């Protein structure tokens, strides 16, 4: 009996929180058939928003992958002064509100701040353009690769690497042939999570992008802007597209996950 009622509670909870809102979006999206959905997703603004989203997400994932593997190795393999501080700092983006992140970036990289002003004089605009949005996205998705890779690095230990050294492999060859293959599934998992987070980011990007339509508008910003302008068809369609991307990435994660640990 207890088992059944627990299931009912869990399912009801998920129904109201997840299934109902997503279901309504799907229903509203396709209320008038597939035609209008396709039309609203292929308007120049929507296509541009897709493009901007990926222009921001892909560099972010690349940076987070490189940084994430580096920091994970540093945290797991090395003992140094300030290691625990670094360890704590990596999780900071989860605790800090994305809006705060955005504001902080403006304070540092805005045109009237020292660093931002200097960069602006040299022709690099960070705020209200792609570089700032990439920075904001990197910030919010920073811990994901580190936290996926570090426990696996810990688990595989250092002996395989040491064995490779004694066999004559340089540090780089050891990294490429031993370390990377050993962490590959965890790394892929972290990258997929990072990609999903980057595509869906709203708050920090909203602040630093300036929400310039057809310039710095990502998919999430597009959804919001269309919704505010009573173009609900476009808003629903774009929201649906984002949801589909999220589901696909989640499926990817679940396909990757069982591979961990085998072999």
């Amino acid at each position, binding site marked *: 009996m207890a088992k059944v009622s627990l299931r009912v509670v869990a399912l009801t909870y998920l129904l109201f929180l997840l299934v109902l809102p997503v279901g309504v979006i799907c229903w509203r999206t396709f209320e008038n058939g597939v035609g209008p959905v396709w039309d609203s997703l292929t308007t120049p603004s929507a296509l541009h928003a897709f493009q901007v989203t990926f222009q921001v997400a892909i560099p972010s994932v690349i940076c987070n992958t490189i940084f994430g593997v580096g920091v994970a190795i540093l945290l797991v393999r090395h003992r140094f002064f300030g290691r625990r501080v670094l360890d704590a700092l990596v999780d900071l983006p989860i605790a800090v509100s994305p809006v705060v992140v955005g504001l902080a970036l403006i304070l540092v990289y805005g045109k009237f701040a020292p660093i931002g002003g200097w960069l602006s004089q040299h022709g690099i605009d960070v705020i209200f353009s792609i570089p700032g949005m990439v920075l904001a996205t990197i910030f919010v998705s920073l811990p994901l690769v580190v936290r996926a890779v570090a426990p696996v690095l810990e688990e595989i230990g250092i002996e395989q690497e*040491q064995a490779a050294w004694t066999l004559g492999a340089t540090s780089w060859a050891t990294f490429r042939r031993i370390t990377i293959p050993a962490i590959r599934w965890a790394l892929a998992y972290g990258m997929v999570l990072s990609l999903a987070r980057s595509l869906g980011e709203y708050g920090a990007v909203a602040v630093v992008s300036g929400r310039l339509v057809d310039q710095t508008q990502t998919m999430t910003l597009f959804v919001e802007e269309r919704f505010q302008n009573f173009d609900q068809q476009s808003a629903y369609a774009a929201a649906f597209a984002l949801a589909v991307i999220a589901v696909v990435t989640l499926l990817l994660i679940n396909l990757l996950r069982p591979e961990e640990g085998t072999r």
Partner: protein
Amino acid sequence: MIRVSNVSKNFGSFAALTDVSVEIPTGSLTALLGPSGGGKSTLLRIIAGLETPDSGSIEIAGADSTKMSPQRRNVGFVFQHYAAFKHMSVADNVAFGLKIRKRPKAEIKQRVSDLLELVHLEQFAHRYPAQLSGGQRQRMALARALAVEPSVLLLDEPFGALDAQVRKELRAWLRRLHDEVHVTTVFVTHDQEEAMEVADSIVVMAEGQVKQVGTPDELYEKPASDFVMSFLGPVTTLRGRLVRPHDLVLTAEATDGAVPAIVERVVRLGFEVRVDATVDGEPIWAQVTRYRAQLLNLKRGDTVYIRVLEHEVATVG
């Protein structure tokens, strides 16, 4: 030849090695024997270049390698827990060092198949380490280390993670392998039986120092200290003197130099009989043959006379 000169190593406030000097002759099979925490693994890792000594020097095959990276030392290293490359097949594991050295493909293929034959894993070439037993993984690790024709083969508790039966088999097998390959080999163990059975020469280490170096016979018969004597085999005390229980002679009548003892317990261990007794209230035990025990008809409470068999006796000195 490996020459270790005045090597010291500290981990924080713990002195792992203190002024250790030892020479390991070319082509020998040497055991570093001692209790855990005695510094033997640290010494082995320093020889391999996986740790750097705080002071002192290491010479391998005539070249000073104190500051050389592990990559350039040309040593083979075998880890207790195999350190198998889990994402590579057995053949790829063995080929790793050769591929790093960019040897021709045909040569690599030939050498890998020769080595797999040597370690009896030819039919497992395409398996992954996870599909092998512990003993097979360790043989693979050995083939991998031997592939690059190291000038020195170093094994860190190579059989420590294996069960007793496999351990015994691999010991005998390592001995035979060494007779075939002749590479200078050093292995770490805390098991005196393993060291005695496999090695030509044994370096006894404890508390970060070399306690004695010698052949198994020398160490057993002429231990340099009570520590070495008690580490290498069973000991008991007769009036404050450390002796081997099988060097004690039991007689029914008092003889020259014999001391009276009261039998506490007689335990039959197959061919041997263990006699627990007390001398002046102090416990002692002797190991005698079953025949001898029957002759004396030993029972609890009997008085026997114990003396030390004075020729060929192991004494500290």
